[in-house]
Structures are given as structure tokens and as C-alpha cells.
């Protein structure tokens, strides 16, 4: 078992604090929806947040007034009578799509606009975050491999379907991997099915093979 399969405590605490970028948070959430161990750690880290907040010396001098607050609540309530409660449990989408990605994957993986980036890999961009980090899905054909690469910034991967292996081990649906410039790896999808991953990269991948290095400028497309 590799510790890479869960987000480390630094990732979890930054997520709980709300200080992680939203695209990276999306990866932590996609993992955590199906990981009860991380859910429990998350609950504790939130508790830490609550304690730290109460340690602050209260900032008095608010211009807020309780009666005005009640007025605006009452106003909202009278307007909201006929509207549908948006906090209703959401319908769970088909298969393995994490709920946190539901907005970006409205139907299923097949209905997304995939583009081919190599004979065995397709990609589709889900959204972009400030600072140019990129949120995309990669779909690797059975047995297909990605070129050996390293990273200029952090790259987070959550496996949504299928599995892949690299130099460090085998990764399956739900697993979370964090790579940075110190990791060079060659992921290969398992032979039985497509492997679909959520990948958030802060900066373009760096290919390290002598031939694929030529493609690097091409990969920078799409980064702010």
C-alpha cells in the first residue's frame, strides 16, 4: 500500500481550511466522497478550524444590527415560499462520477467532448481555475501508456474508473496521487478497461523522453 493513495495531511488540512485552490480541492473532494478514513480526518480538521476561530480575539465594532438581520431574513423567507429548496438531495448520476463533478459531467463520460492527444489518450477540459491551473479528464485506452513525464508544479490525479500502474504501484478507482517536480513517472492503464482520471495540474507536464521532449511546446497550450 502506498501512502499516495490518500491525500496527505497537508492537502487535507489546506482543503479543510479553505486555503487550497478550488481545482485542487475538487480532487480532494472526489477522493473523499468514497473514502471514510479521510472523511473522519476531515471532520477532525474542521474541528481544529472551529477551535482556532474561537481563539481569535472577538472583533467588536460591528455595524450589523440584529433587527435588520431579522428583517432581511423575513424578507427572504416571504420571497422563498414558492421556490424549490435547492438543498434537496441531488440525484446521483450514473456510475462512478463523483457528485462534486456532476456540474461538469451532466450526463456521462461518453457525452463529453474528448480530443485525442495520443493514440492511446484522450482528454477533455472540465474547467479552469485562476492562475492557469487546469482541470481535465484523461481517458487512457486499455494497456495504453502516457509518455514518461515530470511536473513543473503540483499535479493531482484521482482515478475515477479503471486502474493504472506506474513505477510506484497500482492505483485503482478512488485513489489520489500527488506528484511534483521530484516525481518522474510512466503511467500504464490496466488491460481490461479504459482508465478515466481527473487530473489537475498547476503547470504543464514536462516530458522527459528525448523524442517526446519535442512535444512540450504543444502541451503548453491552454495554460494561462
Amino acid at each position, binding site marked *: 500500500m502506498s*501512502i499516495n493513495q490518500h491525500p496527505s*495531511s*497537508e492537502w*487535507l*488540512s*489546506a*482543503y*479543510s*481550511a*479553505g*486555503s487550497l*485552490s*478550488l*481545482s485542487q*480541492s*475538487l480532487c480532494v*473532494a472526489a477522493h*473523499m*466522497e468514497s473514502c*471514510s*478514513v*479521510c*472523511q*473522519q*480526518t*476531515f*471532520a*477532525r*480538521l*474542521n*474541528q*481544529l*478550524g*472551529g*477551535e*482556532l*476561530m*474561537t*481563539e*481569535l480575539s*472577538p*472583533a*467588536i*465594532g*460591528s*455595524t*450589523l444590527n*440584529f433587527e435588520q*438581520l*431579522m428583517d432581511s*431574513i423575513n424578507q427572504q423567507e416571504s420571497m422563498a415560499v414558492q421556490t424549490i429548496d435547492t*438543498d434537496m438531495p441531488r440525484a446521483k448520476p450514473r456510475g462512478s462520477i*463523483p*457528485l*462534486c463533478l456532476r*456540474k461538469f459531467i451532466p450526463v456521462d463520460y461518453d457525452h463529453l467532448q474528448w480530443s485525442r492527444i495520443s493514440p492511446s489518450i484522450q482528454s477533455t477540459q472540465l*474547467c*479552469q*481555475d*485562476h492562475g492557469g491551473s487546469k482541470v481535465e479528464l484523461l481517458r487512457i485506452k486499455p494497456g495504453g501508456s502516457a509518455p514518461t513525464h515530470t511536473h513543473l508544479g503540483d499535479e493531482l490525479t484521482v482515478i475515477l474508473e479503471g486502474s493504472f500502474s506506474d513505477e510506484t504501484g497500482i492505483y485503482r478507482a478512488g485513489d489520489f496521487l500527488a506528484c511534483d517536480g521530484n516525481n518522474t513517472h510512466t503511467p500504464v492503464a490496466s488491460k481490461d478497461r479504459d482508465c478515466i482520471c481527473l487530473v489537475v495540474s498547476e503547470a504543464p507536464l514536462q516530458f522527459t523522453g528525448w523524442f517526446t521532449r519535442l512535444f512540450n511546446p504543444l502541451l503548453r497550450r491552454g495554460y494561462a
Partner: protein
Amino acid sequence: MVQLAQTKTPQETLQQWLRAVAIERDQNAFKKLFEHYVPLLRSYSLAREPGSSLLADELAQEVMIKVWNKAASYNAEKANTNTWIFTLARNSRIDHLRRNGRFATNIDSSDLFDNIVDTSPSPFQAAQTHTVQKNIREGLDQLPREQAEVLSKVYLQGRSHQQASDELSLPLGTVKSRVRLALKKMQLLMGDL
């Protein structure tokens, strides 16, 4: 001195007030929660945006409206009131930054946090919450200054590890290891994370 008395309100009392809001829609209890939490919520906002008193009021107001609207969903077995209010404040802060274009993205806090449920069996949760509470309190009291400083950057000032590293003139690895050491000291980590 009034403020000091407010922060010493025991957890049981805060929970009673919140329950009264949830069940009886008790405005007096809500007013007490308002008086207790608004100054803390303002401090939380000011920690990130010092000097921005208006923003602090805005965040406090938004969170208090959520407290009123969502009181019924509060579960005392899963979290104490401070934890619950902190998560509401964190989410409001994220959405505020997003609305103001600081995060150019269509990811919002409900995508990130609304689908995470703690699936551990509830009879253990209340007891566990107490143990965790004790560990956090004891840990915070003994925490070396440099670890407390990093935690405050991340949790209260909302800084990324990179920003904390820049502001404290520390290597990124040192920031991360201080976070880890602090969490270990408070026994907040499950397994070998």
C-alpha cells in the same frame, strides 16, 4: 469585558440556543448566538483581509443567515457549534472570493463540501468529538510558536502553503512539515497520512 464573558459561554449553552432556533425558531436564542458569534466571524474575516470591516460585516451577516436557515440540519453528535459555524464561514469566504473574481472558476463551495458526509457510526461520534476536542485544546496550549504561526496562516488567514512560505520567508517544505507536526501533536491524523 462584555466580549470576554461572551466567548466563555459553555458549549452546552450554545447548543441549547441553536436547538431552540432549529425547533422553536426562537429569536431570542438566535440573538444570543448573533451576539456570541458575530465578533468571532468578523475576526475570522479580518484575519484574511485586515482593515476590511465592511467585508467582515458582510461575511458575518451571510453566515448568520445560514445559521438561521440551516439550524435544523445541525447535528450535535457530529460537530460542536464552533466547528459547524467555522465550516459555514469557510464556505462563505470561498464563495465570496469566487464572486469577486479572485478565483476565476465555476467551482463553488457546495460542489466541494456538500457531498462529503462522515459515515462513521454516530454512537461513537459524540465521544470521539470530545476526545478530539481535548487533544486539540491540549495540543494548542503546547504548540511551539512557529507551528501555531503556520496553522494560523493556513486556517485563519486563508493562505496557501506557497503564500505562507513567501510571507514567512521559509522554504515550502518547512511550512508543510510544520503543519504536519502540529497536526500530529494534536493527534488529528488517522492512520499513516
